[in-house]
């Protein structure tokens, strides 16, 4: 049996995460990308990888089903999972922003009216508006959030932006940046102690592969 089980987010971060681990000498067989298997070992047999939806990574790690995981800061904040997050891996950089039509930017949030916000991040969205004293109605969508303002479902959205292209093409502008997000290594609190040596090795190993980040 492998020393550690690591949960990786499918989708946006998957290829970069696999590449990052490869640089650290932990090689996930190419089969991972091609096949539909959701659980496989690295070449050394010391690590098992499970591939799950991004939002599920903190869940698997918090429950200890996976000892560690890689997911975006955005997903981690939304989950509010009680885990260690020892490394900012630096890749998958994007911004979590409030966006809306250009005219809504000028108006700002009318603090006396309820803001209607469509998002995949209900917890972060509610926190953000409540902290600013703005009453908020959060509309939870599971994709294509940028459509909401165009169709009149909501005035604003809270969503991830990488290049800003999708926003522009849907006639939206960034109104405020909530946080920047990068991929994080997260670690289960029990595993941190129960598998201390293996975990310390993994963290030290990955740390050496974090490249210099722009602007820091």
């Amino acid at each position: 049996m492998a020393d550690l089980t690591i949960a990786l987010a499918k989708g946006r971060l998957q290829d970069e995460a696999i590449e990052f681990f490869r640089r650290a000498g932990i090689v996930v067989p190419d089969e991972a990308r091609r096949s539909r298997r959701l659980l496989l070992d690295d070449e050394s047999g010391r690590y098992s990888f499970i591939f799950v939806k991004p939002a599920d990574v903190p869940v698997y790690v918090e429950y200890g089903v996976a000892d560690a995981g890689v997911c975006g800061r955005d997903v981690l904040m939304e989950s509010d999972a009680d885990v260690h997050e020892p490394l900012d891996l630096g890749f998958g950089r994007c911004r979590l922003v409030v966006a809306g039509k250009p005219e809504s930017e000028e108006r700002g949030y009318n603090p006396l009216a309820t803001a209607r916000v469509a998002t995949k991040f209900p917890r972060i969205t509610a926190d953000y508006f409540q902290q600013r004293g703005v009453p908020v109605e959060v509309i939870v969508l599971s994709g294509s959030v940028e459509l909401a303002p165009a169709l009149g479902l909501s005035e604003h959205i809270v969503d991830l932006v990488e290049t800003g292209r999708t926003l522009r093409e849907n006639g939206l502008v960034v109104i405020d940046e909530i946080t920047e997000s990068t991929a994080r290594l997260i670690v289960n609190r029990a595993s941190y102690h129960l598998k201390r040596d293996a975990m310390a090795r993994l963290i030290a190993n990955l740390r050496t592969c974090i490249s210099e980040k722009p602007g820091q």
Partner: protein
Amino acid sequence: MSITLSKIPPGVQYIFDDEVRVRRFVERQVMETFEGWSYREIILPIFDYADLFALGMGKEQAEMTYRFTGRDGKLLALRPEMTSLVARTVATRFIKRARPIRLSYSGEVFRWDEPRGGRQYEFHQIGLEHIGSDQLEADTEALVIAIEALRRLGLENFTIALGHVDFFNGLAERLELSEDRRREMRTFIDRKQTEQLDRFLEDYTDPENRAALCRLTTLTGKREIIEEARALVSNERSVAALDDLERVCLIAEELGIASHIDIDLGDVGGLDYYTGLTFNIYAQGLGTALGRGGRYDQLLANFGRPEPAVGFSLCLDWLAQLLAPEIIRTAAEYKNEVTRLSGAGDIVSVFKEANRLRADGRKVEIV
């Protein structure tokens, strides 16, 4: 069946048969261990005045209680934990008793907290409190008892992460942080976010000290890490904390239980409550701590009688979850040893036969 009848409120549980057996077994083993160390059991009320819990666990934590109004118009709360009730009892009713006082408890507590990691709104705590001694022997006793109880349950693969709040306090004190900034720093340490901690410290201290702080707060391991820590830290409070940790480790080595203990200098989880040693118990197969404890020398003062104290509690629900497969296997044998009697014949003779079997200690079922 109508929906209103079948729906149960989120976070509560109904427990039946094998699962009950498991819980009773675990409870009995742990309570007998406590009894063996002369801890006397105290049965506490399910609810008490809401203010009491705010005194015990802090206003913020006490927000999580289920509250309702008593007939006298006073606000009551279902107990969210046991220690406040014990502390109040000791401070008001046990004034004249000789110290230390050793007490144990077992029962459900109720918290309006997001159920996660398998914990419900309602869960069962088993714990002990050792009140009136400020000596490290008391802390060590608690630790030794916890280990005995877990071993008695058949658990071998567990680790107690041992920390000390004064290690962090000593370091933080010298940085002269505002309360908000201190909280921020604490979160970074709690989540082991070394880089963020390093950036945060830029405004407060020189690079050398920064590096030392970042290293210190992620230090975990056996006794040798205390030596490493000593080379990096000089303030009195942190050094005294290291002394305590080292002494406990040395004792643990002598007792042959050191393999279950892991020092965690970055444990800042219980800072609002604990005043000395802290411990979090982790076991293979569970993602969260199945028990926690530590020294809480400030609490009794909230109830009008300052006294040192140390204690810990185990979560029965998690222990049961962890141990269920093994215990159920064992219990199955007993369950199968049942003598079935037909109830179709003469009812008096059926019961006579049943009574005879029962007198022999046999298990019967009238079918």
